[in-house]
């Protein structure tokens, strides 16, 4: 048998950190290759936010009167938030699919870092979300959206949106490993994410909502994310009434605390789950 050729098949020297980084890069590469080989995924994840920007601008924009720069400027932060939150669901369905395909079983019989598989997965989402953001920004600028803040604030806003989606990817990855089929993840996450993004200040000012919804919107972490992005992009309409709830008063702190809490809970949960799952 030709396996008797002279290649030595010993692991190259490395410590657990370099191994982790290398494994994380290999699995990230794998997920990026998927984006390249199945361009439909990227295409649809780009078309949808563009469609939302255009639909909301021209359908609701005519009916909703926002002081200052108008509805488009108000809307953009909301669309960004909605898109990155939905973008995180890829991690869920992809983990469920990998489990079903048995590729997770393959990874788990290799002497690699299990956490790296999850890092690679969530990194893949981050790339898709970043690309979506760029395309949305382009579309937004075409339909009249303007950033009225310093470049630093702008970058902080973008960073906050991506950070939030990254934390959400870990939640979704955990759910993806907990369900029996990839389809469940898509359907279930829509049930949760639609109310979460719509009962918020993303598309309409929340001060006019009926009281129970208004309270929900004020405490909703998505509202905090949207409000943070509006502040950092300089898109807060003049005369906005900020709710009395602490998250509404301190949106950026709320997002940072929320992200930390999600990561602290779900990163270890995911790693523990991964170490025992098998098809």
């Amino acid at each position, binding site marked *: 048998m030709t*396996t008797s050729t002279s290649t030595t098949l010993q692991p190259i020297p490395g410590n657990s950190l370099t191994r982790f980084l290398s494994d994380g890069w290999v699995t990230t590469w794998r997920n990026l*290759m998927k984006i390249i080989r199945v361009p439909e995924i990227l295409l649809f994840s780009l078309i949808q936010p563009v469609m939302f920007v255009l639909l909301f601008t021209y359908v609701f924009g005519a009916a909703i009167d926002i002081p200052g720069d108008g509805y488009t400027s108000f809307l953009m932060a909301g669309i960004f938030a909605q898109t990155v939150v939905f973008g995180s669901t890829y991690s869920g369905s992809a983990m469920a699919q990998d489990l079903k*395909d048995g590729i997770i079983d*393959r990874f788990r019989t290799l002497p690699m870092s299990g956490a790296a598989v999850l890092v690679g997965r969530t990194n893949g989402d981050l790339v898709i979300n970043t690309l979506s953001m760029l395309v949305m920004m382009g579309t937004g600028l075409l339909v009249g959206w303007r950033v009225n803040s310093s470049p630093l604030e702008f970058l902080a806003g973008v960073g906050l949106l991506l950070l939030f989606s990254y934390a959400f990817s870990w939640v979704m990855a955990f759910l993806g490993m907990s369900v029996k089929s990839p389809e469940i993840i898509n359907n279930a996450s829509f049930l949760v994410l639609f109310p979460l993004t719509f009962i918020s200040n993303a598309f309409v000012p929340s001060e006019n909502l009926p009281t129970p919804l208004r309270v929900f919107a004020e405490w909703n972490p998505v509202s905090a994310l949207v409000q943070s992005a509006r502040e950092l992009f300089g898109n807060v309409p003049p005369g906005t009434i900020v709710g009395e709830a602490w998250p509404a008063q301190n949106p950026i702190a709320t997002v940072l605390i929320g992200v930390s809490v999600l990561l602290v809970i779900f990163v270890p949960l995911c790693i523990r789950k991964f170490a025992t799952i098998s098809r």
Partner: protein
Amino acid sequence: MSFIEAIDLVKTYSPKGSPQVRALDGLNLEVQQGSVTALLGPNGAGKTTTVKVLTTLIQPDSGSAFIDGVNVVAEPQAIRRMIGASGQYAAVDQNLTGFENLLMVGKLYHLGTRVARQRATELIELFDLVEAQNRTVKGYSGGMRRRIDLAGALVIRPPVLFLDEPTTGLDPRSRLGLWEVIERLVADGTTVLLTTQYLEEADRLANSISVIDNGQVIAQGTADELKASIGGLRVAVTLVDESQSENARTLLTRFGSGEQAILTGRTLVVPVQDGPHALAAIVSAAAEEGIGLHDAGMRRPTLDDVFLQLTGRSAQTDEAETESAA
């Protein structure tokens, strides 16, 4: 100590809404270095669960397992450096090319990019996938996927190879091709533990067979030893009329060496002492009692007879049922 040793493995599952399943019920197994051992049994016997425990995919509820003295449960990462595993469903990334799949596995074994590339090239040649190497696996045939998956299990030339139903679902030609690859590996000294529902596969590849049923090993030995253990010649008859099977069974048992004749379909088989004599006696007695026979003959025991004798069921029938149910 044997090269692979499983001691009293127990694993239970509790599927929702159904009673608890004891997938492994005190399973003991020994595999000698350089041997090919087949775990032979029907679906649900515990074959795959055994392989999953030994390849660190699941933890047993109790019991222990060792490969070359390394504790499978306590030191999974050390085990992963010595094993290759290839499963029933080819565990490959559909969106990567064949070459990229092998390269990825090599990198995840930390061989370094240069060696991982070299090794991927070697394996692509070995498995006759040179022309397909730059196409995504999505377009591969079932047999090609199975080969790339097996190649993935061989990246570090592991001393131990686990093959979980390596040829299930393959057409006869691909099956033969895969058997040849496995035979070459064995000639290289790799220890192989494979699971199969195919008696023919166990007979051809394995030099040791563990018959497994209800989560336990119920017999172990070479194919010849197992056949010898259930006695000598068999008389087998095929009935014209299935409704006469009970009378025919009584008749065959009367002339057999003591054990009940076993009926599968319209065929009855009974172990006998003196073959030619028993055959003649059975044929004439059947004629007297008016039991119509399509054919009657003597044969040496097959692995299927072993299976029938040990479990009261045919391994093949179980498989056919499962396939039609799926």
